[in-house]
């Protein structure tokens, strides 16, 4: 059954790719479009239904080991024995449900969004291929198979970012994503090698049962576990766009908008969070690794939020918002609150997919205009899009009772209770900034005065139902998705114990002791809850004040001599791309030039010198071949005389 979940998207990709994208079957655009959509969407829908069925079975059987299916032996070499096996346990089932259902909604949305694209079949083939690799990533029951999925989603992401490869900039963006990810993959690969070195196996169940066994771990140096955890995190930093490897994600917005929603918001970029959760034993065993993960996560969240404040491209704002929210997820998994991190992953998948699809709907309506300075007052023209977008924006801002509120609050609460006080303070400010930039985006796009140009205004229209229905479904999920993980202390008031079903479900599959808070803290659960609500509301209020109530105040601040430079820096993304260009890219070019010269002069030069010496020697020797028969005879005679002379001389 698990095998079917993975196989179906691959079959969909193969059919669309081999039959239509390859040009084997030629049909008019409209009928080709219909068949391709049916193949693409139904394969994902079937996979989603099967995974839902398995999920229900998993809950009913209450089996923490999960459903394991070993298909065949894949690699055998010495001690190494890797089977092509899949694991459907509590963690991967959550991921699979998110991937297949959100993936299905985005497939349906794409039918409307890509309506007129000439490479319609190619688009759906890539999208199915991505789902296939993503499912391999989360369902594989060993590290190499996870790595196959890991690389595969990188490939699918590259193909889809550069989908419109006619535009050089977009092709470059795809390449940038691929190359930056390579750095992270390198760390991941070394981590896999180290795991094999220490544990002698790459199977999840073998490795984690050994890692959870104290007698085995006594002989393993802690520095080794820290190294494994940090190298795994390097992989996660690349794939999940954390500082300093986040630079590819904003550029990845060059791809079609549904792709940004599916790959660069809801699923692929959360692979790192999934991987850290999966490898919880390593992180929980190394406080140093945890500290580094949390610090990078908090910094990334804050840093990306400051950039998102001033971006003018609707998708760029969402891209930086995604980076920031991924930072929140890593805060959760970094401190050992794996369920909280995974919970935020799920709710984020709902509302960020919703926001991206909403942005896509806006871009679709605005004839491919992405600059929010040229939007405004779109609420009248896009009633469904604007309402669903508002739901998403409020959910991510942490407005009480929406999904983002529950998940973010759990991360913030855990952060404080586990003693990361400074990190907690920065995270609260980030939550405020999140609300501020999201509502800024909403106000600039849908409210205020219209800044839409005449030509675009005439064509303004609400998107077709294939696009709005997924928006509505996702909006409902963004509102209700949080109620599977309501914090326990909230449930206590209503007399319900163990209300946080999500937390218990995920923890059941993690072989790590749950952390119980010790001692008394200055803030109680409720104080923290109120604090994060206040931060969210303050952000929304500030956005209202600056963008609706008194827009002129904003200009005063941004043009102010004292802090105007801060606005400029944020607008220019803190010049990180420029810094990377000047240090790494140019440095790499210089090194390449040097090594080219080294190759040309030293390596090639040596060989060339040797070759010219040999050919010179043979030139010299060939001079002895006069070609004159008489001369040969003369030399022979002379030689004979010499030999005879020597013979006589020695005889006597």
């Amino acid at each position, binding site marked *: 059954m698990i095998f079917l979940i993975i196989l179906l998207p691959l079959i969909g990709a193969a059919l669309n790719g081999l039959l239509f994208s390859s040009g084997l079957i030629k049909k008019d655009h409209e009928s080709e479009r219909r068949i391709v959509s049916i193949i693409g969407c139904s394969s994902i829908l079937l996979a989603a239904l099967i995974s839902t069925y398995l999920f229900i079975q998993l809950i009913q059987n209450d089996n923490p080991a999960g459903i394991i299916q070993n298909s065949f032996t894949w690699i055998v070499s010495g001690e190494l024995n890797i089977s092509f096996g899949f694991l459907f346990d509590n963690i991967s089932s959550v991921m699979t449900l998110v991937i297949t259902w959100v993936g299905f909604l985005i497939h349906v949305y794409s039918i409307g969004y890509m309506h007129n694209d000439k490479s319609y079949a190619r688009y759906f083939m890539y999208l199915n291929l991505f789902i296939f690799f993503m499912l391999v990533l989360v369902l594989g029951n060993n590290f190499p198979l996870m790595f196959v999925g890991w690389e595969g989603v990188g490939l699918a992401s590259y193909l889809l970012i550069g989908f419109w490869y006619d535009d050089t900039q977009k092709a470059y963006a795809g390449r940038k994503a691929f190359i930056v990810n390579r750095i992270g993959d390198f760390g991941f690969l070394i981590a896999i090698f180290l795991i094999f070195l220490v544990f002698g196996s790459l199977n999840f169940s073998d490795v984690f049962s050994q890692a959870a066994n104290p007698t085995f771990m006594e002989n393993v140096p802690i520095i080794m576990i820290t190294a494994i955890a940090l190298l795994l995190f390097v992989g996660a930093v690349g794939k999940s766009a954390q500082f300093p490897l986040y630079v590819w994600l904003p550029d990845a917005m060059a791809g079609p908008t549904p792709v940004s929603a599916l790959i660069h918001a809801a699923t692929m970029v959360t692979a790192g969070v999934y991987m850290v959760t999966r490898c919880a034993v390593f992180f929980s065993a190394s406080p140093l690794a945890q500290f580094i993960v949390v610090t990078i996560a908090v910094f990334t969240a804050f840093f990306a939020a400051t950039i998102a404040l001033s971006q003018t491209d609707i998708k760029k704002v969402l891209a930086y918002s995604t980076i920031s929210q991924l930072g929140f997820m890593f805060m959760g998994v970094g401190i050992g609150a794996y369920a909280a991190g995974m919970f935020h992953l799920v709710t984020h998948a709902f509302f960020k997919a919703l926001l991206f699809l909403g942005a896509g709907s806006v871009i679709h309506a605005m004839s491919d205009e992405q600059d929010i300075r040229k939007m405004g007052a779109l609420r009248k023209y896009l009633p469904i899009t604007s309402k669903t977008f508002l739901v998403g924006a409020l959910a991510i801002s942490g407005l009480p009772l929406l999904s983002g509120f529950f998940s973010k609050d759990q991360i913030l609460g855990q952060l404080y209770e586990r003693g990361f006080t400074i990190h907690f303070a920065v995270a609260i400010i980030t939550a405020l900034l999140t609300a501020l930039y999201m509502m800024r985006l909403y106000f600039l796009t849908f409210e205020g005065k219209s800044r839409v140009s005449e030509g675009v205004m005439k064509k303004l229209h609400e998107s077709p139902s294939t696009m709005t229905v997924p928006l509505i479904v996702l909006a409902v999920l963004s509102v209700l998705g949080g109620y599977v993980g309501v914090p326990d202390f909230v449930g206590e008031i209503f007399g319900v114990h163990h209300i946080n079903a999500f937390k218990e479900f995920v923890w059941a599959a993690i072989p790590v002791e749950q952390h119980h808070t010790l001692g008394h803290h200055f803030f109680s659960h409720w104080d923290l809850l109120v604090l994060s609500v206040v931060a969210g509301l303050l952000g929304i209020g500030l956005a209202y004040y600056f963008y609706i109530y008194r827009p002129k105040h904003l200009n005063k601040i941004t043009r102010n001599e004292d802090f105007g430079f801060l606005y400029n820096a944020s607008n220019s993304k803190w010049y990180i791309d420029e810094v990377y260009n000047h240090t790494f890219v140019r440095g790499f070019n210089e090194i390449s030039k040097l090594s080219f010269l080294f190759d040309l002069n030293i390596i090639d030069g040596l060989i060339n010198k040797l070759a010219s010496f040999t050919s010179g020697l043979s030139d010299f020797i060939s001079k*002895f071949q006069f070609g004159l*028969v*008489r001369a040969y*005879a003369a030399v022979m*005679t002379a030689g004979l005389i010499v030999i005879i002379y020597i013979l006589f001389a020695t005889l006597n």
Partner: protein
Amino acid sequence: MEITINHYILLSFLLFAIGCFGVITRKNLIIVLMSLELMLNAANLAFVSFSRFYNDNTGQVFMLMSLVVAACEVAVGLALVVSIYHNKQTINIDVLKLLKG
């Protein structure tokens, strides 16, 4: 004066030297072949002389053998000369230097 083995050997040596000189100095292929023949016969003379001197017939047998070989060689050599003349319109041996390095 009595003719001793020394005289025969001296004659044989002179014949060989003249033949060798001819092979080295002359350009005409036919004359080169003739000089070669002279060198062969110098060797034959030495064979026969020693044969008589030691009263051993083996030398004479060898001489007959080499005569036959020389005859064959001349036949082949002259055929080559004819063929070379057909191709090059000359039998100047210095023209034949295709193997010059």
